[in-house]
């Protein structure tokens, strides 16, 4: 059924939301955060650098967009189709990508702080690092929610804030709290993304992408 109240901005919003229906972005981001948390946890407990883990951790931000595209081609596009965006819309999406880069940057910030080469100077007397860390991801998801109109991201933002602040308030060493923030954020995003993906797959079965059989 055609929606009689549909207008151009609504169509634009609908097209933007189409990109985020599957939850793949959250799964990839969440997995990366979990991987980062695991790496740092192993690094503190064993006191050794785990090289293959480290390489994977550094490689994931570089391959995440091709990885998302690869997954979308196999899971998303056969179900809900695909549209290519013109340069103007791509510019809008670049803003979203910048936010994602900010999220990843914040994680690199954690790495820095954790390794003792970055925030170590401040952390001896200040307790703001985990607090800022706990607020970065929720802020990014709040922005994404406003930009895209995807309400799910608002829920993620709230959950990330609650879990992040909870972890930041623990009476553990700074390193443990940063790892806890990362791990909880990773868990929230991966699980949230996975639930979204399962619901998406159930709601949209694989369909024929062609109009071939319909034309006379």
């Amino acid at each position, binding site marked *: 059924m*055609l929606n009689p109240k549909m207008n151009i901005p609504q169509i634009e919003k609908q097209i933007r939301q189409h990109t985020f229906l599957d939850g793949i972005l959250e799964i990839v981001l969440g997995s990366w955060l979990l991987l980062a948390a695991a790496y740092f946890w192993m690094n503190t407990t064993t006191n050794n650098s785990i090289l293959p883990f480290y390489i994977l951790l550094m490689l994931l931000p570089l391959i995440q967009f091709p990885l998302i595209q690869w997954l979308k081609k196999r899971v998303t596009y*056969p179900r809900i189709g695909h549209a290519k965006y013109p340069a103007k819309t791509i510019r809008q999406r670049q803003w979203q990508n910048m936010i994602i880069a900010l999220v990843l940057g914040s994680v690199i910030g954690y790495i820095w702080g954790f390794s003792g080469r970055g925030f170590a100077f401040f952390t001896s007397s200040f307790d703001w690092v985990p607090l800022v860390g706990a607020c970065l991801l929720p802020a990014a998801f709040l922005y994404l929610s406003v930009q895209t109109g995807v309400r799910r991201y608002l829920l993620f933002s709230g959950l990330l804030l609650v879990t992040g602040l909870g972890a930041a308030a623990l009476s553990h060493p700074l390193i443990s709290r940063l790892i806890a923030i990362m791990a909880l954020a990773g868990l929230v995003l991966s699980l949230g993304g996975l639930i979204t993906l399962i619901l998406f797959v159930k709601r949209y079965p694989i369909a*024929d992408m*062609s109009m071939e059989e319909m*034309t006379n």
Partner: protein
Amino acid sequence: MIGENLHQLTALDRVIHEPARLLLLCYLSLAEEADFLFLLHQTGLTRGNLSSHLTKLETAGYIEIHKGYIGKKPQTICRLSPTGQEALQTYRESLKEALEL
């Protein structure tokens, strides 16, 4: 004066004037190209309806349709042609002028 402007309504492009086709052109003007499935989900039209409207738009030269394959599965990709872009713009201006929007 109003009557004169309203008279332009009769000259509106009837291929575009149909709501479903207008919606399709709007989608295709916002996306560089879109496949059949995407348009199906976005517009909420039935397969047969969508297919028939796309064929009409293609016949009018307003859209280009490319049929290809992804692996073994057929895929139909639609794109707004320069003629379609121009026709949509003209339609928009004519309607605006006629209704004094």
